[in-house]
């Protein structure tokens, strides 16, 4: 592959020092600007950027110092920067720049600012084996949606489930079942996104039944029950209505519930 670069540029492109600089700049651009553009990814946190850049720097140093001649050539521009009389201005700028940067970084480290405490939350906490629903006990382990036992009446249950969803769940979980309802922005944690492959798609229907019946207040401590806006639906809906709305959630999103046969031990 012959890249046709002007001779002046080619001299830079073949010089190990400028190769190293180029690699570092490229790595920075990829980590900070390109990664957030990839579907399903987010902005890379500053501490992670620092880790990436440190790794790349170490790799680059290993590469340039791997061979004696390359190492000598790599050091040339640095030596010139320190000694050449014609680079006096650049030398001053680099010294001042590095000094200023160190000052800024140090200030950022020692300055104290109060931030919101981290919200560590178990998204799918372990469910109980048994719950009490309006005074009678329901065993969750091994439980499947009873409305699936009669496929001929599924359509009727779906109609009920859909009505229940639109009357109750819509403000938070939204028209698209994506947790982006018109009330969603008011709550933290934001409502569950049923379209995502990390929610109902990997849960048994009995887990979903537990979460709907007991809501936020029924979460164990690791689920931060004090923050969740999920109501305790046993106060509003019958057992049958909850099973109907569960049918609707799976039907509308196209997911199939996790089954007990596939489950290794109890639900995680």
């Amino acid at each position, binding site marked *: 592959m012959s890249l046709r670069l002007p001779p002046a540029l080619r001299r830079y492109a073949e010089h190990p020092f400028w190769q190293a600089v180029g690699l570092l700049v490229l790595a920075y651009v990829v980590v900070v600007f390109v990664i957030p553009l990839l579907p399903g990814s987010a902005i890379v946190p500053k501490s992670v950027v620092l880790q990436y850049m440190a790794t790349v720097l170490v790799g680059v140093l290993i590469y340039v110092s791997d061979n004696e001649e390359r190492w000598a050539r790599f050091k040339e521009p640095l030596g010139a920067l320190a000694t050449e009389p014609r680079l006096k201005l650049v030398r001053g700028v680099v010294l001042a720049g590095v000094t200023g940067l160190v000052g800024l970084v*140090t200030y950022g480290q020692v300055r104290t600012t109060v931030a919101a405490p981290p919200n560590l939350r178990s998204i799918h906490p372990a469910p109980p084996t048994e719950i009490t629903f309006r005074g009678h006990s329901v065993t969750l382990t091994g439980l499947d949606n009873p409305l699936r036992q009669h496929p001929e009446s599924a359509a009727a249950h779906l109609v009920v489930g859909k009505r229940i969803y639109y009357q109750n769940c819509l*403000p938070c979980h939204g028209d698209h079942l994506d947790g982006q309802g018109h009330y969603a922005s008011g709550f933290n944690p934001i409502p569950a996104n049923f379209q995502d492959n990390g929610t109902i798609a990997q849960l048994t229907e009995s887990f979903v039944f537990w979460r709907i019946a007991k809501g936020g207040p029924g979460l164990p401590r690791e689920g931060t029950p004090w923050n969740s806006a999920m109501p305790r639906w046993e106060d509003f809906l019958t057992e049958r209505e909850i099973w109907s709305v569960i049918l609707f959630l799976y039907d509308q999103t196209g997911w199939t519930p996790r089954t007990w046969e596939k489950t290794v031990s109890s639900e995680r």
Partner: protein
Amino acid sequence: MTNRVMFCVTLFGAAVSTPLTAYRSPLTAQDTVKGKAVYVKWCAGCHGDTGAGDGAAAPAMLPRPRNFTGAVYKIRTTASGQLPTDADLMSAIDEGLPGSAMPAWKARLSEAERRDVIAYIKTFSSFFADTSQHIVPLGFGKEPGGGTSAQAVKTGRSFYDSIGCRKCHGDQGRGDGPSAPTLKDDAGFPIFAADLHQSWRFRGGGRTEDIYRRLRTGLDGTPMPSFSDLIDQKFLTDEELWRLSQYVRSLSPAREPEVRDVIHAPQLGGTLPAAPDDTTWARVDRYWFPLVGQVIRKPRWFAPTVSGVWVQAVHNGRELALRLCWDDRTLSPDTAWLAFERRVLETVASDDSTPPVAGLWPDQVAVQLPRHIPDGMERPYFLMGTGTDPVYQWRWTSEPRRTVAGLARGLEQFDTLGAAPESQAVWDHGEWRVVLTRSLATPDTANELQFVAGRAIPVAFFAWDGSNGEHGSRLAVSTWYFLALDQPTPPRVFVSPVVAMALTLGLGFMVVWRAQRRAGGSRGTGAGVGAGAET
């Protein structure tokens, strides 16, 4: 071959760059059968199986979902009384209708699905079947420059007064005009004049050109008329209507307020600004917190009018002052709004055992804090605590005009404590501004939160609009946020960077000096130690 490639490239370019102009031509290749499948799956829950705007979710909604059988649409680019263009319908589906329950579908349904569903929606009304009608958008021209100049805003304001905007939208634009309590839409549902200070909630979009378009086309089916005829009658020029749009735009923040987790209360010297309109507040950062309906405990409330609260905080090492500002078009209780309140309560579904009755309720706001600053992340339940883990709240009411402090044990129970914060409040053209002041430390350390600087203190906000029938569990709620009392920066914060910088500079000089000494043998001296040392 080359021609075909060029043609494809042009087509692709057109599709990418000018989707809106492409939609202006009538939609083609629409399949109402496919459209019906999309509609039944995603739209019917609100808009109803027959398109009458009466789906399962509709009774709890205000504004109600669009009734497609009447073919009356608010957000159009066509003249008042005309059908919307396909592009108008597409834009409502793509972007949703801000401030309502209608979400944006662009990322959810494919373009083909959205086009098909438009074809199906149009079958609900015979008006669209009449193909002799030529549906054309109005020509809107371009926004004239200089819209933010004082003169432009003044011109805009003069027409705001002269063409009657203030009758419904009020003197300052918060929807509190004298006619506001009488407003109904064509279906008889109560309708609020828009709060012009919250452009991010305008159904048709909050840009100046969106506002201009609404002024030209009106919002069909609502009391908001079209003002195009005033241009025809030479009452005002097109440019003056643009100035009015620019004035309306100037009432809202430049962007939708961003929600930040932590309210920072700077430390001030001297006495705190206890009056809501003290000039000190203009210099303090303000934080926006969205409020949504209480839909967790019975009876739920799906139609709150307070969409959020602006919060500012300052302290002086002894006391804390908290300023809350929120838009509320009514100074409750207000008998002028009683009939409107009744219509709202009749319209919005509730799960009360007996239908709620309109009453002369006050406006209220509550600031919620834990009783103690938590050490871990555990906090009381955000919705007013529980019987076993209560929260400490300040509750301000407009009538009687006072603040009480107490412990809330869930929505139903509030036990007043002896001491309460000082409070001052003003209601000014549709906005409440309330300042609450309390000492950081109090004698009742068991029940009253003791404020400590430098800690993240959980805080939540609740609001009731009495003239909207809000009281008890019918209210607007927020989740937990945080309040931090900032401290003056200690001197060590400035010492460390200076030391680090001196060390770095010294090290730099040493490296350069050594390099030059080594090179000195072959090249002679004269390079100098470093630019910094020589100057």
